[in-house]
């Protein structure tokens, strides 16, 4: 069991501020950590962008999953800056389309049940990816 817990995934949410998806991604990041507290290391975009040694080390040490909120794919850009190929990429629009969720009318300062639905779908997809990545890592050591 102790060996299993050594397998972790670094999760890099874009965590922006300008758009509604910024709030969705941030809320989903918290939920991902709640759902897999021992397996997930949440990374701060801000600290990573300025090369904070602790976060750079985490990003380099563990398989990395990026969550991009909007079209510029800023979390992926950051991953490229690190010279690391992510183990998984999630784009919020894909999750929205897959689950046919409409968040029109939601406000970025606080979500209602509609926005929470997208948060939950995003977190569920991310956690499934975390489980897959860890399974892949574990199998590669056997």
């Amino acid at each position, binding site marked *: 069991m102790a060996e299993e817990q050594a397998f972790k995934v670094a999760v890099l949410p*874009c965590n922006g501020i300008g758009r509604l998806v910024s709030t969705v991604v941030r809320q989903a990041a918290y939920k991902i950590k709640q759902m897999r507290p021992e397996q997930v290391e949440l990374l701060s975009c801000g600290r990573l*962008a300025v090369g904070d040694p602790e976060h750079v080390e985490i990003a380099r040490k563990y398989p990395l999953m990026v969550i991009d909120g909007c079209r510029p794919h800023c979390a992926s850009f950051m991953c490229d800056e690190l010279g690391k190929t992510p183990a998984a990429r999630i784009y919020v629009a894909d999750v929205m389309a897959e689950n046919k969720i409409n968040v029109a009318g939601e406000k970025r300062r606080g979500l209602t049940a509609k926005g929470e639905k997208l948060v939950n779908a995003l977190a569920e997809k991310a956690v499934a990816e975390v489980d897959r990545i860890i399974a892949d890592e574990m199998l590669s050591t056997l």
Partner: protein
Amino acid sequence: MAEKVCLQPCLGLRKEAVVGRQALYLVHEDLRPETTVLGCGPALNANVQEDVDFINMFPVLAVEACEKDCATRLVDKKGKAASRTVRVTELAEQEGVDLSGLPEGENIPTEHPAVQAVAARIAAMVDELLNAA
């Protein structure tokens, strides 16, 4: 005189960062909508033109959650200097607001007194920056 101020927040996930972000939504959407723009850190880092333009065109007020001052350093990384850096923790302390009871890992409503107090201080700083520029 500058037309607007670019509000550049910390991008962290800790509760002080959430207070700062929520305060900036209040400032930008309610208190000073005509005189502020919201700078998105990941977008600035990724050289999204709008966000690069913001720091080139307007004085930058960096709103930090901790002593790492990542927003200020990100603006430095892009070749500009923030006109002013403030920390949410210090603003709250000056306003007599205790942040210790706030939850980690969840959103904090804009109605919360801590968010309101920090937003009011930031709005005043926007005015000061515009008058000084």
